[in-house]
């Protein structure tokens, strides 16, 4: 695959940096003049999505783009390959959906004006941070982006201003800072050992040994904490229970995945052959699948259930590590594709599910599952959206979750790693168990009539579109997977 160098400022580079940085500008602008309608937000955000699509097209035609820039004596690296491009596209789509949803959310839900105005700059900051994480190719940029992302995410979680939100948000901040500390220590060790911070240089210079091992362990611990991987997931559920639906959607869909993405990149460069450690991560993921699923099944409140489901679903991603370490090229390729497909499918579906759950809660005023009894008659569309999103989470066809599960199963069977097959089976059944609990309540006919608030049609429509795109990704997986196969795997 050809690598076009970007010594000169080509159109692609300009467009890339515009798509990365314009959201910050838009966020600041929207903070000063908070939008009142969905349509302007959609119209202003759409070009960003189109620009990303064009970038992806360029990547598929002429291969990876990469380059450096040096602010103040530092040399920073970036690259845009198929994987980064796809994640960028996913991010732009979800940001647009969340931004539009937030406008509708404010129209129905009494939100303090100041908090609403504060949402926008934080959203812009989050957009920049996520974009940087996907394209950054050195540890310094990654560190800065990771911190920015964490701060913006905490800020957004604090927006509701209630006691529980503050407590949960502060705990999140504490965890994030501890994670950053571990990360910084790891980076320092690596810098001391190899003298490089860019990924390629690290991979070339880092000698396998105790220092690299300890550094990687520190980095991994920090990232696992930020990614809420079992057993470091304690902070995740309380934050989501009190957060606004569009914030939860973004957080569950993208923020926790960003840490996973970084971990995967580092792991592949530094300790790709550490089979035992990879199995440890796989086992943690398996426990996450089981524990998250069980807790989601036991949850009383709807948003709590959806949040626990994130803990469980993140576990699937961790299965990639043992399937990539020391396995044949065929298995590794399958696991690689499965992981990113699962990530994208889960991101779309989880955002849709948080929004659908938000709609159900907003319209009924009920937080508990039992309060949703008989809701199928009154809120069929919200419930349907919830169901379609759940199809992806359960990994039933036709959805990205299903196609990803097919790939994962195939990889596990080919590699003879039967444990993961059992984990996938258990995870699927647990997911079905907790998802259909909602329907058991919702389809009851002997329940009292609710006083339902009418929601703007846009709220349901945005969630439905996201849920449907997760389905479409299942059958249309060939295009993104082809981009993945060509590049992105270090």
């Amino acid at each position: 695959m050809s690598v076009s160098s970007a010594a000169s400022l080509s159109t692609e580079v300009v467009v890339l940096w515009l798509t990365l940085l314009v959201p910050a500008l838009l966020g600041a602008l929207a903070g000063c003049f908070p939008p009142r309608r969905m349509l302007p937000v959609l119209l202003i955000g759409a070009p960003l999505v189109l620009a990303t699509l064009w970038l992806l097209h360029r990547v598929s035609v002429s291969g990876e783009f990469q380059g450096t820039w040096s602010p103040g004596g530092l040399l920073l690296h970036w690259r845009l390959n198929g994987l980064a491009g796809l994640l960028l596209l996913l991010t732009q789509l979800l940001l647009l959906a969340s931004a539009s949803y937030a406008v509708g959310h404010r129209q129905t839900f009494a939100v303090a004006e100041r908090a609403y105005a504060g949402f926008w700059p934080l959203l812009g900051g989050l957009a920049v941070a996520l974009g940087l994480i996907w394209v950054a190719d050195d540890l310094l940029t990654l560190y800065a982006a990771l911190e920015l992302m964490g701060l913006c995410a905490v800020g957004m979680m604090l927006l509701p201003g209630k006691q529980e939100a503050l407590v949960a948000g502060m705990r999140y901040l504490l965890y994030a800072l501890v994670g950053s500390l571990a990360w910084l220590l790891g980076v320092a060790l690596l810098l001391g050992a190899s003298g490089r911070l860019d990924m390629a240089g690290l991979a070339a210079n880092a000698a396998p040994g105790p220092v690299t091992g300890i550094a990687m362990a520190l980095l991994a611990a920090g990232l696992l904490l930020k990614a809420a991987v079992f057993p470091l997931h304690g902070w995740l559920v309380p934050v989501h229970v009190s957060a606004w639906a569009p914030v939860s959607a973004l957080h569950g869909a993208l923020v926790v995945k960003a840490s996973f993405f970084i971990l995967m990149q580092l792991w592949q460069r530094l300790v790709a052959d550490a089979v035992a450690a990879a199995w440890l991560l796989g086992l943690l993921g398996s426990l996450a699948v089981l524990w998250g699923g069980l807790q989601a099944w036991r949850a009383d409140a709807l948003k709590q259930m959806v949040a626990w489901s994130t803990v469980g679903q993140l576990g699937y991603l961790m299965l990639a590590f043992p399937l990539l370490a020391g396995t044949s090229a065929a298995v590794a390729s399958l696991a690689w594709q499965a992981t990113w497909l699962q990530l994208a499918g889960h991101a779309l579906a989880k955002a849709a599910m948080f929004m659908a759950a938000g709609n159900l809660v907003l319209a009924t005023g009920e937080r508990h599952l039992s309060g949703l009894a008989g809701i199928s008659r009154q809120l069929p569309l919200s419930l349907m959206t919830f169901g379609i999103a759940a199809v992806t989470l359960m990994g039933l066809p036709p959805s990205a979750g299903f196609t990803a599960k097919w790939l994962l199963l195939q990889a596990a069977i080919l590699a003879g790693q039967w444990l993961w097959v059992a984990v996938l089976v258990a995870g699927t059944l647990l997911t079905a168990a907790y998802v259909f609990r909602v329907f058991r309540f919702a389809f009851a006919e002997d329940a009292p009539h609710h006083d339902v608030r009418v929601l703007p049609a846009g709220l349901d429509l945005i969630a439905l579109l996201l849920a449907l795109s997760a389905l479409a990704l299942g059958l249309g997986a060939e295009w993104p997977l082809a981009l993945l196969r060509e590049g992105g795997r270090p």
Partner: protein
Amino acid sequence: MNGGLLLAALGTSLLAAVVIFLLPERAFRARTGVNLGAAVIKLSLVAWMVWGLRLGHEYAVAFPVLEGLPFVLRADALGIMFAGLSSLLWLFTTVYAIGYLEDSPNRKRFFGFFSLCVASTLGISLAGNLFTFLIFYELLTLSTYPLVVHRGTAKALAAGKVYLRFTLTAGLVLMIGMVALYALAGDIRFGQREILAGLEPEYQPLLVGLFWLLVAGFGVKAALVPLHGWLPRAMVAPAPVSALLHAVAVVKAGAFGIVRLVYDIYGIELSAELGVLHGLVAVAAVTIVFGSLRALAQQELKPRLAYSTVSQVAYIVLGVGLFGPLGTIAALSHLLHQGLMKVTLFFCAGNYAEELGIHRIDELDGAGRRMPLTSLAFTVGALGMIGVPPVVGFLSKWYLGIGAIQAGMPWVIAVLVTSSLLNAAYFLPILGRLWFRPGPDHGVGAWPGERRLGRFETHAWLLVPTMATALFSLMAGMLAGMPFSPLEWATQVTNAEYLR
């Protein structure tokens, strides 16, 4: 290659589902129009393809989903046969359901998922490889769940839970089996029997293991003993749903999966060589006798019909297990025959329940006088199930019997005779009660809950489909030698299977 028709046929039901979901609950007329229009259009499209297939046209469409794994729709003779059945019965069941659910709540949800369910069934019949088959097979599970729990009572919701436990677990088992098969041999289009047959002999134990894994996955929906537990409970669903589930959708999808597996993936020769056919026959024989015995023990009409389905669908599996063209003809034709007869019986059960409030068998005394046409249809269906000529059920049993002799398994005849005797034992008393016992119309007792629906013995929308399917069951038997009859079509498919 002409894929447009396939996509149009599939799209018709999918589009109908979407439009129905978009229409408001009160838009009764528009919904009825969409329902019937879509059913008629789809039936015509399938009929067109049936004709085209006869003329030697090919219908296929495919696109890649994963590297080396395409989504394939293809109309082969076997698939189009099943598609024809589902389209025909969809039309009748839709008419019936519109009458049955008149003035009841949640009709939008019901008909939306009903259409999705039919779309899945069509997808199952036209799927061209296991991957595509699985997609629609699981979609069928999802789209039938809201139909099973439609009443929203505690009993219905509990039944839905059991239904999901069985079917979702089975779906996973099936998926693992399919992935393993794919990992072993790559993508196998239905009909590419040479792929597995060409594998090295050392893979044969693995192939046997995968065969049973897949049969276990299909066996849940096909309600093979001991995997049948969900079926009697799912009886809480409204009558049209039961009719659809038992005649063409869920139970048949499982049986059809086994048919595809044996004839189009493994191939009948390889299956015989692997020695899995004997096991299949044994499972089917146990299921046939067990289902009949359990049916005999039921005091209510719908559960008795449900256990009868357990037994009757196993006839298909039995026919598949009999090596030889006659067993195959029996299996394939019974796929259609059982659908026609069972849908009739369930329509009748629904009519009795709606018009007279009858659920128990001992409440049927004298109902033949009050509802002669329904009872006539029931009689046709019941006699067919027992195997009395000229109703189609006779043909199935005849071919099964001589197929068993041809396959060198004469003991199967004993199973058939036992089953027929049991069938008679649980159906004839019902007929006796209907026609020869004095009932409320003779001044004895009272109907449990009589309602006067419409000008005829019951609502016309309920009566017409019942009569139509009864007539089809009768005609399929009497005109079995004519072109396009189920038997003739099954013979065509069989010839193609064995003459390759």
